[in-house]
């Protein structure tokens, strides 16, 4: 235990502050318990049967889709920054002699000790995990799941491969590939807002589902070609109490693919750089 800092007066102060925070949070939670206001939440579920069965996915990618665009940016930024800290894109001023950055060396993974039988099953496991990730992203609109989950599953497949096979990772993502799909994913997500923006002026309006063009005050009619391109490939028949609804998730499945690519690129790149470090010469070679 390193509780050295607890001893001084600063430690006592911090402990008292901590106690106050704890009591405050507890009191707030006690007051909140059972008194949570539903607010606007039920509104979001009211039209679920017209767009997609997974109401959470609808909230994340459609109702509040722009939030998620920036949130996707957070993970992109996380990857860029942590990779930059390790060495990709460190900058120096031309005029000033600064401290040299620490050279990053790759970790030494001892893969010899892995059981041979285990190793025999790891390759199918990696492939099937990757396929499972893809299943998750394709089913985002109907079941729990989506881009981020897909990205994490594929990244875990990558990490398992790296742990058991070292440099002979079966899912041998190259640096340029990861950077490219990460960037492509975020750009795809960002640019999927363009059709809605050009037609209606609302960024990321879901032109495939098109819930609102019949409401008074909506600025434009959605051309039928956009329905065909962005809506029809995802049309499903929902059999519910209250009738059968032919709904479509519109651009949401495409957005999910963008998000998945971004997350795969970002998280695999973080893993890769943490394990193998970064050197510019390797990127030039690849």
């Amino acid at each position, binding site marked *: 235990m390193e509780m050295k800092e607890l001893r001084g007066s600063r430690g006592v102060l911090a402990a008292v502050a901590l106690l106050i925070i704890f009591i405050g*949070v507890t009191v707030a939670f006690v007051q909140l318990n059972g008194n949570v206001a539903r607010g606007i*939440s039920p509104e979001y579920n009211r039209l*679920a049967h017209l767009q997609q069965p997974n109401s959470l996915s609808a909230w994340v990618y459609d109702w509040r889709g722009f*939030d998620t665009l920036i949130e996707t940016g957070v993970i992109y930024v996380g990857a860029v920054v*942590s990779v930059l800290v390790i060495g990709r894109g460190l900058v120096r001023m031309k005029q000033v002699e600064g401290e040299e950055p620490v050279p990053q060396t790759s970790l030494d993974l001892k893969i010899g000790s892995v059981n041979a039988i285990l190793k025999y099953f790891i390759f199918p496991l990696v492939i099937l995990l990757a396929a499972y990730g893809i299943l998750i992203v394709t089913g985002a609109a109907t079941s729990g799941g989506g881009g981020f989950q897909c990205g994490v599953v594929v990244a875990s497949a990558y990490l398992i491969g790296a742990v058991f096979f070292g440099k002979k990772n079966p899912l041998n993502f190259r640096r340029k590939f990861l950077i490219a799909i990460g960037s492509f994913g975020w750009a795809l997500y960002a640019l999927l807002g363009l059709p809605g923006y050009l037609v209606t002026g609302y960024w990321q309006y879901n032109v495939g589902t098109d819930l609102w063009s019949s409401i008074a005050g909506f600025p434009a009619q959605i051309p039928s070609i956009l329905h065909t391109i962005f809506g029809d490939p995802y049309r499903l028949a929902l059999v519910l109490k209250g009738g059968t609804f032919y709904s479509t998730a519109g651009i949401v499945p495409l957005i999910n693919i963008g998000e998945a690519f971004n997350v795969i690129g970002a998280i695999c790149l973080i893993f890769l750089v943490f394990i193998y470090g970064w050197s510019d010469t390797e990127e030039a070679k690849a």
Partner: protein
Amino acid sequence: MIELTLQFLSFMASALLILIGIAGMLFLDNLIKKIIAFTLLSDGVNLALVSLGYFEGGVVAILTPGTSVAEFPQNAVLIFGPGIVLTNIVIGVSTTAVLVALTMVLYKRYGTLKASKVLKGERK
């Protein structure tokens, strides 16, 4: 008298996790342990957000065959809790990655993980 409902218990658990997380971040000296404490804190916040959406008799916010269209909006659990948890997870992952990267670099420079040694002020 406070009733020990599921929501109340999970709120208390999250308060405890938040306490442990903040205490760990303030008092532990090891940088990696600090980062672990941060993930605990972030999990506590996630738990609070999830339990915010819970209410007695709520159903998952996903339509399944045969669900009643008219009753679904009122029956489904509050949707912003899980939605914000997704964001918090993403933010937690990114922040942790940046923290670990900085810690790795500083460890390679100084050969120690002790915050008191690594972060000692040495400004000229």
